[in-house]
Structure formats: C-alpha cells, structure tokens
C-alpha cells in the first residue's frame, strides 16, 4: 500500500493486561521504526527493523516490550503487563530501502492511542 497502516487506532487496557499493536509499512519499504509519543510532545525511539531483522533496539524497555517484523505479516509491538506510564500514542513509520539513502524520509502511520487504566 501507499500508506503506513496502523491498527487499532485506539486500545484500552487495564493495568497488567497485554497490549498488541500492528503496523503494515508501505510496500517496498525495508525499514520500520516504532516511536512512543507521550503528551503530544516527545518522540521516544523504541526500535527499528531492516526487513525482519532488528536494526536498533536501544530504546526498548526489554522487560515488557517486544517487537517483530516477519515476512508477509504486519509488524507488531507487544507490551506485556501494561503499566499506567505506557499510556501514549505509538507511531510506526517506514522508510525506503538501500544504503546511504536509508534515511531519506520517514512516512508515518496515524498512530495507536494506548490508554492504560
């Protein structure tokens, strides 16, 4: 597709429940990024993928967060045992493939609003 598709748009979970978010990157894009935006302000980098391989996971709280990008499936971000502070908008973005032009531009999905109660 020609846009990054994120589902669901909104997700409500009780504290301690699991949350799973999905992202289909633009067809032909090899790089996928997940960002967490809290309070419409700071974008916190979580993880990036090059195809199905983890590219950079330095932002992931590894105890409860995990992510995958498998062939022929949407990418996913899963939060086990959600906490109140996980409430945020989670954005997925993709970019074009290849070498030095990897970061030519990011195309964003419309985000998933996660509310942990």
């Amino acid at each position, binding site marked *: 597709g020609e846009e990054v598709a994120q589902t669901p748009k909104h997700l409500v979970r009780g504290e301690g429940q699991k949350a799973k978010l999905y992202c289909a990157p633009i067809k032909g894009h090899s790089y996928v*990024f997940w*960002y967490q935006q809290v309070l*419409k*302000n*700071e*974008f916190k*980098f979580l993880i*990036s993928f090059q195809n199905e391989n983890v*590219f*950079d996971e*330095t*932002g992931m709280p590894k105890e409860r967060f995990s992510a995958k990008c498998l062939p022929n499936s949407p990418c996913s971000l899963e939060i086990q045992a959600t906490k109140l502070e996980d409430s945020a*908008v989670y*954005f997925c*973005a993709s970019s074009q493939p290849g*070498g*030095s*032009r*990897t*970061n*030519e*531009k*990011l*195309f*964003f999905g*419309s*985000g998933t609003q996660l509310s942990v109660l």
Partner: protein
Amino acid sequence: AQTVTQSQPEMSVQEAETVTLSCTYDTSESNYYLFWYKQPPSRQMILVIRQEAYKQQNATENRFSVNFQKAAKSFSLKISDSQLGDTAMYFCAFAPTGGNQFYFGTGTSLTVIP
C-alpha cells in the same frame, strides 16, 4: 550522542504574517538529513520539508523554507503567509545517513490567529 533542541514550546502568528521556528542540533556526523514535520490535532505526522546536509542551498516548499546553517548546527523553519491550517505542533528531526533512527525535538506548538 545526537540531540535536537527546539527552544520555543509555543508560538503564535497572525494570519498572513510570517513566522520562524527555531531548531538546533548536535552531532558529530558529517552526512545527515534534517526535517520539519507537522502534527495537526488529527495527530498524523506530515513531512513539511527536508534538507540534505551536503547541500548548501536552503530547501523550499511553497510557503515553507528553511535557513540551514551547518557550521552553527541550526535549522530554522520559516512559514510565509501563515494560514489557519498551519496551526499544529511542529517537530524538527535529524537523521544520520544510513543511521538507525531519527531524532526528534520536543516540538513547537504554533497557533495561527485569524
């Protein structure tokens, strides 16, 4: 470490006037891209303008232009003939060429006043 700083949390401008949003960044990279993204209340992130660091010429896109000062590590956005639809959060971003992630500033909330 790469950092992006936007020192103006909020700004306002009269419709049809010109406004400049500031952004500075810190990096030891020599090849990189700089971006301005707009986030209206719909929360969709929209690319406004992009600058390649190796290009000296400032990027322009219709009413949007940048003032890129590589030595000063400054990348300001000028919006001319401001319109009500320009009301949004604006994020400055930096990405090293071939790097692993994009780095974002904390945003400037711009309000265009009728």
